[in-house]
């Protein structure tokens, strides 16, 4: 019966071929992947395409049915952004942030993960301890840092006469490095976990061979551990760069709007100010897209230089 039916249906009907071409060999696969694709489309793809469109138009959010002409303005929004000294300052600030945050994150996370991997006692306690700042809301821990790095704070009391003047968070030179330090501390637990997972996969035989060849602990770390966790290092570098470039909460809370005098303003803080507070989402979109392009360039360079041949 089945055989008969199969014989009755042409094997390559034009409709079926077209459907087959669009939906693929396993149409059910689309159904399974659809939720995630829809999610990506809604939270990333469509907003991203919209922001490209916005950045080339005179755009502001308007009421449904309002008679509004979103005229094409070419590169005017980009011109406004690139001639604004505050934007250049914000990109410079985030550059300083990344130069401090990314290397510090990689070095500290790797060293701590390496040590944690060797710890026998209280291993879970230590891992949780490093992870707690990561899962704690910035709002909650910012107060502690304000207490530590305020003019009358604990750090300045310990430093006594060598405490910086003006103090850390109102010092135009030290404000961004202090924020970078805060973010490094806060995110470290997550990156330690990434390295810990990578360290589990380093074959013990490599260490044994190195030891047989006379390598000490430092040589083992340099010649076995670091090359073995290179893919994890690339991941840590990329993730810390991407999250660092999107810096917002810390300058918003720690220095209340990017102070002193714009020294800790970040591009995303400007996006918030211009897009939400000042009602110019078109200009904000231009800043956002410039940031995306710069981050992509940095990420490609990192992939090339950190990732090695296999990246």
């Amino acid at each position, binding site marked *: 019966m089945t055989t008969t039916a199969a014989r009755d249906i042409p094997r390559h009907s034009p409709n079926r071929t077209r459907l087959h071409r669009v939906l693929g060999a396993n149409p059910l696969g689309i159904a399974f992947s659809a939720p995630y694709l829809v999610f990506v*489309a809604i939270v990333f793809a469509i907003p991203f395409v919209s922001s490209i469109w916005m950045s080339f138009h005179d755009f502001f959010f308007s*009421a449904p049915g309002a008679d509004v002409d979103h005229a094409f303005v070419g590169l005017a929004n980009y011109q406004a952004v690139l001639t604004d000294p505050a934007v250049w300052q914000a990109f410079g600030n985030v550059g300083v942030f990344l130069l401090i945050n990314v290397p510090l994150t990689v070095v500290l996370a790797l060293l701590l993960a390496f040590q944690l991997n060797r710890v026998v006692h209280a291993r879970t306690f230590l891992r949780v301890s490093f992870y707690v700042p990561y899962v704690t809301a910035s709002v909650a821990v910012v107060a502690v840092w304000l207490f530590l790095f305020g003019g009358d704070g604990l750090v300045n009391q310990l430093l006594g006469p060598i405490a910086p003047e003006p103090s850390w968070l109102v010092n135009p030179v030290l404000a961004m490095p202090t924020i970078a330090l805060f973010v490094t501390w806060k995110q470290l637990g997550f990156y330690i976990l990434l390295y810990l997972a990578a360290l589990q996969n380093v074959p013990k035989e490599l260490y044994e061979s190195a030891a047989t060849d006379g390598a000490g602990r430092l040589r083992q770390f340099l010649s076995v551990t670091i090359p073995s966790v290179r893919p994890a290092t690339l991941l840590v570098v990329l993730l810390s760069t991407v999250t660092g470039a999107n810096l917002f909460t810390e300058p918003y809370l720690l220095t*209340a709007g990017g102070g002193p005098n714009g020294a800790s303003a970040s591009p995303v803080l400007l996006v918030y100010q211009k897009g939400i*507070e000042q009602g110019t989402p078109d200009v904000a979109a231009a800043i956002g897209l410039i940031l995306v392009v710069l981050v992509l360039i940095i990420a490609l360079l990192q992939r090339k230089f950190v990732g090695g041949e296999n990246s």
Partner: protein
Amino acid sequence: MRRRAGAHVAVMLTLAAVLITGCGGGQASTGSPDKHGDITIWYSNNEQELEWGKQMVEAWNADHPDEQITAQEIPAGSSSEAVIGASIAAGNAPCLIFNTAPVAVAQFQKQGGLVNLSQSFDDAAAYIEDRSGDLASQYADADGDYFQIPWKSNPVVIFYNKEMFAEAGLDPDKPPLHTYDEFLDSARAIVDSGAAPYAIYPSPTSQFFQIDIDFYPLYAAETGGTPLVEDGKATFADDAGERVAEFWRTVYDEGLAGDEIYQGDAFADGKAAMAIVGPWAVAVYQDLDWGSVPVPTSKGTPADEIWTFSDAKNIGLYTACENQGTAWDVVEFATSPEQDGKLLELTGQMPLRRDLAEVYADYFDENPAYRAFGAQTARVVEVPNSPNAVAMLQKLRDAYTGAVVFGNGSIPDALRQAAAAVDDLAAQP
């Protein structure tokens, strides 16, 4: 193979677009000024205003069974203005919001979110001007139309801690705080005597609205009521603006005010002997022995001639409203002499009503702490009425924090650059 993958993505993106279009984006309102029926309103979430709002809604609903009000607090967000802006874009703004900040009104108007009251209701302009007098004109747009109903102000003055002043050897009943020189001498006496770590502690941060609490009140006082932007031009880069900025720079240079974020209330915590506050402070600082004086001027202008910043909150009627006729009737009811009296009584905030001190003389006799604020309401200035008002204030705030709080560069240069940027913004639609 690659073409097939592209087709898959295209299918999914189309599906997502359909989903988004279906779920988001409100519909254009079909509301009109002639329609009557049930309405929704939002009000502020502070305890006193909630009490006023609830009794107002109850009183209205009792007499209007066919035009009921449903009220709720403004939804939580990073700021009320961000929430209101988002609700306008989504098409689900309520009929009335009793906490519409004047700084955002022109932006909401540009978004098509606010009803032009002057064009929609025959008696609106006359009603607003009759109730608020000359102050009303600050709330009209460039064409003289009203998109907001001036509702209440919180004119800012200086509160001082009498105990700290006495400890510093200053007369707590007649504190020398009228001129800049007197103010600075008193401030030095407070810090030098150890009565308080700082004389005053206005927020030194870069947020745009902080300019309304330090520079602007003193500039309004120094100029006899000149707004920051007049006839499309910035005014503050003048001699008066420089005097005000130099005064504050001296305060910061000499460490009489803190330049760091203070987590808490510096005045309540005894960290500073003075604060720049509105009438809300009467209830907040009831445990302190405080006195109040108007903001200082360089020459010591008499108290009854001093202007200050209004810190007003107004009422907006939003285009998403179906029954706009009822909404306007509710506005008239909520700003009636009776409801204004209740607002004063329950919140201590000043209705933007002309001759306030005379109309509610009994209240001010019974509550002398509010008398200074009542007298001050006739002399208040407002933020620029422009869709770029926030950007203008941010430019001025950035210049101020740089040159004044952190003492970088010359004050005249900073003010001039900020004024040029504000002029550019004022010229933009």
